[in-house]
């Protein structure tokens, strides 16, 4: 294994399959949207689907699967942690509506 060479990749056929899969997920997202669920239900659905999609893209398209596990094990937790911490914005955001001076 020379420098920068990822382990043998599964070949284009497989990637085409993944690509079709991704398109399907996008399709599902649209279908869910037009069943008009409550906004927060929709948000939950879309986020889950988006993360699945992103995960697949990371794993196969960005070759994370074919790198050493160490890469995934350092990059992903760090990102997850930072994004998790950003969720501390929400308690405030939800408070805004009730405390607004003007309903405009």
């Amino acid at each position, binding site marked *: 294994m020379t420098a920068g060479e990822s382990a043998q990749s599964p070949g284009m056929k497989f990637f085409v399959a993944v690509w079709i899969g991704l398109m399907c997920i996008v399709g599902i997202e649209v279908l869910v949207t037009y069943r008009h669920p409550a906004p927060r239900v929709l948000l939950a659905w879309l986020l889950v689907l988006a993360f699945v999609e992103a995960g697949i893209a990371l794993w196969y398209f960005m070759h994370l699967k074919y790198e050493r596990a160490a890469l995934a094990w350092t990059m992903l937790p760090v990102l997850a*942690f930072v994004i998790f911490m950003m969720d*501390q914005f929400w308690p405030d955001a939800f408070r805004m509506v009730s405390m607004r001076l003007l309903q405009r």
Partner: protein
Amino acid sequence: MSEAAAHPAVHQHTAPTGFIRKYVFSVDHKVIGLQYYGLAIVAVVIGMALSWLMRLHLGWATLPIPGLEKLSPAGAPGNVMTPEYYLSLMTMHGTIMVFFVLTTAPFAGFGNYFLPIQVGAADMAFPRMNMMSFWVTFVAFLALMSAFFVPGGPPISGWTAYAPLSAVGQTSGPGEGWGQTMWAVSIAIFCVGQLLGSLNFIATTLDLRTRGMSLARLPLSTWAWFITSVIGLMAFAVLLPACILLILDRTAGTSFFLPSGLVFGDQMLPHSGGSPLLWQHLFWFFGHPEVYIAILPAIGIISHILPAFLRKPPLGPRVLVGCIASIGFLSYMVWGHHMFVSGMNPFSAILFSVPTLVITIPATIATLLWIGSVYGSRMQFTTAALFCLGFISVFTTGGLSGFFLAQPTIDTYLHATYFVVAHFHFVMAVAAIFGMFAGTYFWMPKMVGRMMNETLGKIHFWLTFVGVYCIFMPMHYIGLAGNVRRYAAFTDNFLVPLIPVHKFITIAALLTGAAQFLFLFNLIWTRFRGPKAADNPWGATSLEWSTTSPPPFDNFGGRQLVVHQEAYLYGVEGASADFIMQTSSETVEKP
């Protein structure tokens, strides 16, 4: 030499000859390091001058300062500072110091110069990107300085630039026109520069370590720079969009940070729907990690220097790395402690308070480890060593006042008082600057190949050490008395009696500031007149001391070093010398 030939990094690029390529647009990490250091020195002189003017105004509000009118006719008519000009100086002082001194000198400056050498590399992983990162930072500095000269003058909203004051533009007061825009632009550019720098540090530390330089053998300073760059990678990434949104609010008429129904001069602004708290969240999400970006490199530097003068290995270096890492990790969980009284959800306050208090644990461990290292040593009290001891002292003092501010209940009383000013100046500003001084006295022989003057250095230390305590200790007392910060003058009945204390602080600040010219003189004198330095004047072990002073263009003259030892083998029983270089293959049973 054949070995070296096989080493790509060495033959990456040959030494440039032209002046421009050699000293201006150089890709050599050593030159870039010195450029960063120089930028920091320029910035710190400006920042200090500003603080002098501020202190003078706080001590004697009506005192005319000769020549000030020339500096800013609008800001100081008749040489007497106007309140808004005071706020401008305060804003610029904070911004310059935090971004262009505390981030630039210990991290980008020494980091650029010594990180590659300490890992045994010929240069950074991406020399050209490295050069870019400096010049981007330099442009950011120019952009900030331009705020002094734009119509309306420099911004007045503090280095935190809280919206709406910073976002509505000229209507909210002088300096909030072009000055504030330039501020936001400058900081946005700065973020890009830091991103490039961090990428380089990370790649270099992980990929360019010479044979035998395992992660466990990395010097503590390298560890600190590495962890800092990881923090910076994420922190500045949040400030960048925040600044972009701020610029849009100011120039494009958006209202990200501007709520409905803002009224200035009986005129209601068209903005609607935004939230000032959003800016505070985004800013402090960056802002708190930034505090550690400033202090962690200093921690690393003094942890690296101390053993060389204690002539014994540091106590628990692995534990220390653990402390630095966990401080970095926790730094993302605590930004809300800047917002306890900001109208943030009170539940979050408790949520932020606990990890803030928890940070004191790794910090305390680190401090105890330094103190424990001093135990049972026969210390060589050089200037660098003294500054290390000074660092331990001020870091302890500043850290302890954090206990108060970490608790929302006590913060309701102390928030935005001089107690806070005292706290962050001790733990972040003074501590980081002491780290920078220690690094300078320790590494200058390597950087310019000449020894600094120890006598001058020691005088400089004593004046500075006593001086900072005289400046910042009293701020705790007036803070407890509820002395509000960011006031241009003290007119409230409960503040007037405290003015004498401010007079004392001002005098102390002027003297301490004056003492810094000894340091500047020492720097210049060393550069041109200082006695030639040996390759390893301190008898230190890490790789920067196994090359000439100053190091050749490729750091080791084409030699490919091999590391056999841990970083800090001082005072080893039965060794040929009282220390073992990392490169020496000498084997003795560990003490």
